[in-house]
């Protein structure tokens, strides 16, 4: 009883604080400070039509590298917690028969989902999307594959290699930016005039390349986590 009263009190106090913030809030009418600079100069300086991508990959590129590192750390900790032996990868789980609809639909949908994921991360500098979103879409394809056949054997050697190679390539492109352009993760690695025509697929310098590697890495990492969840179930 006392516990419920305390919880209600906490929620009420939080709600009161939020209400005060809400009633005093006024929607902004113009950009200010650094946002103003990004919006006004972003197209010229970076060459990406999507300003959010310009900020994520170039202006705050170091932050994105840290973000990719955190995902890698998550995958490592999960691999540590749900430790699998070699024979676990070949074990089969007793499961209910999967429905005919799911199996047939997954055969049709999985290639399309993969294609859509690749489209999303390659066009991250033009459309709302990017490496993380594209990688997550690819991983939904893998999740569908696992749901349609719980005993599916993903080739984890391929997953590990894709993950490692794209992670290293991301850093190598960052260092190339230091050699060929202004600094770490600078996107003008093809020269000052090498940004390409604004608004086309081959524009914005290194951004499509970096985001493709990020997409592959995120897709491989989430698939790896899903595979770990699935394969470590049989002890439970």
């Amino acid at each position, binding site marked *: 009883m006392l516990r*419920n009263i305390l*919880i209600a009190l*906490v*929620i009420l106090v*939080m*709600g009161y604080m*939020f209400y005060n*913030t*809400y009633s005093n*809030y006024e*929607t*902004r*009418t*113009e*950009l200010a400070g*650094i*946002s*103003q600079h*990004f*919006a*006004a100069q*972003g*197209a010229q300086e970076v060459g990406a*039509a*999507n*300003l*959010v991508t*310009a*900020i*994520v990959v170039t202006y*705050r590129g170091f*932050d*994105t590298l840290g*973000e990719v590192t*955190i*995902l890698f*750390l*998550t995958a490592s*900790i*999960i691999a540590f*917690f*749900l430790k699998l032996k070699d024979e676990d990868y070949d074990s089969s789980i007793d499961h209910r028969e999967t429905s005919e609809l799911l199996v047939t639909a997954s055969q049709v949908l999985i290639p399309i989902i993969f294609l859509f994921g690749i489209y999303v991360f390659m066009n991250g500098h*033009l*459309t*709302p999307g*990017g490496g*993380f979103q594209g990688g*997550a879409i690819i991983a939904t394809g893998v999740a569908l594959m696992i749901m349609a056949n719980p005993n599916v054997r993903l080739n984890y050697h391929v997953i590990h290699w894709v993950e490692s190679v794209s992670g290293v390539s991301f850093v190598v492109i960052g260092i190339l930016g230091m050699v060929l352009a202004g600094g770490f993760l600078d996107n003008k690695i093809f020269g000052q005039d090498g940004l390409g025509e*604004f*608004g086309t697929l081959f524009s914005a310098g290194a951004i499509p390349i970096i985001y493709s590697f990020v997409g592959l890495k995120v897709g491989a990492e989430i698939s790896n*986590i899903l595979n*770990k*969840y699935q394969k*470590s*179930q049989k*002890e*439970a």
Partner: protein
Amino acid sequence: MEYIDLGHISLLIGFLLILVGFWGVLTQKNIIKIIVGFSILNTGINILIVSLGYVKGKTAPIIDNAVAQTGYHDVSASVVDPVPQALVLTAIVIGFGVTALMLAYAMKLYKAKKTLEINKFNDLKW
């Protein structure tokens, strides 16, 4: 009834989701439901940050036809703030990592005691 703009609506939704998520984390007994509560809390905070970057009557920060249609020659006068959106992109990925870790812990806890009731895990209580 006065006119409510998009910034206020999304701010309100963000605050409500935060309260719902917090309530779920505090009251639920099942570990999976607590994780769902954390996810809702996370989503609420993300919506809140994005809504703080909303600028009245402006379009998405992608330079295409929609920007031209707003009628301003200057891009910075026709888009919403892109910085909070970029920060939220980072926050979503971190949130994914945290949720994945919590689910792995939940699997591990279930293996230890064959239950997901949080009250059964009282080994550190005396």
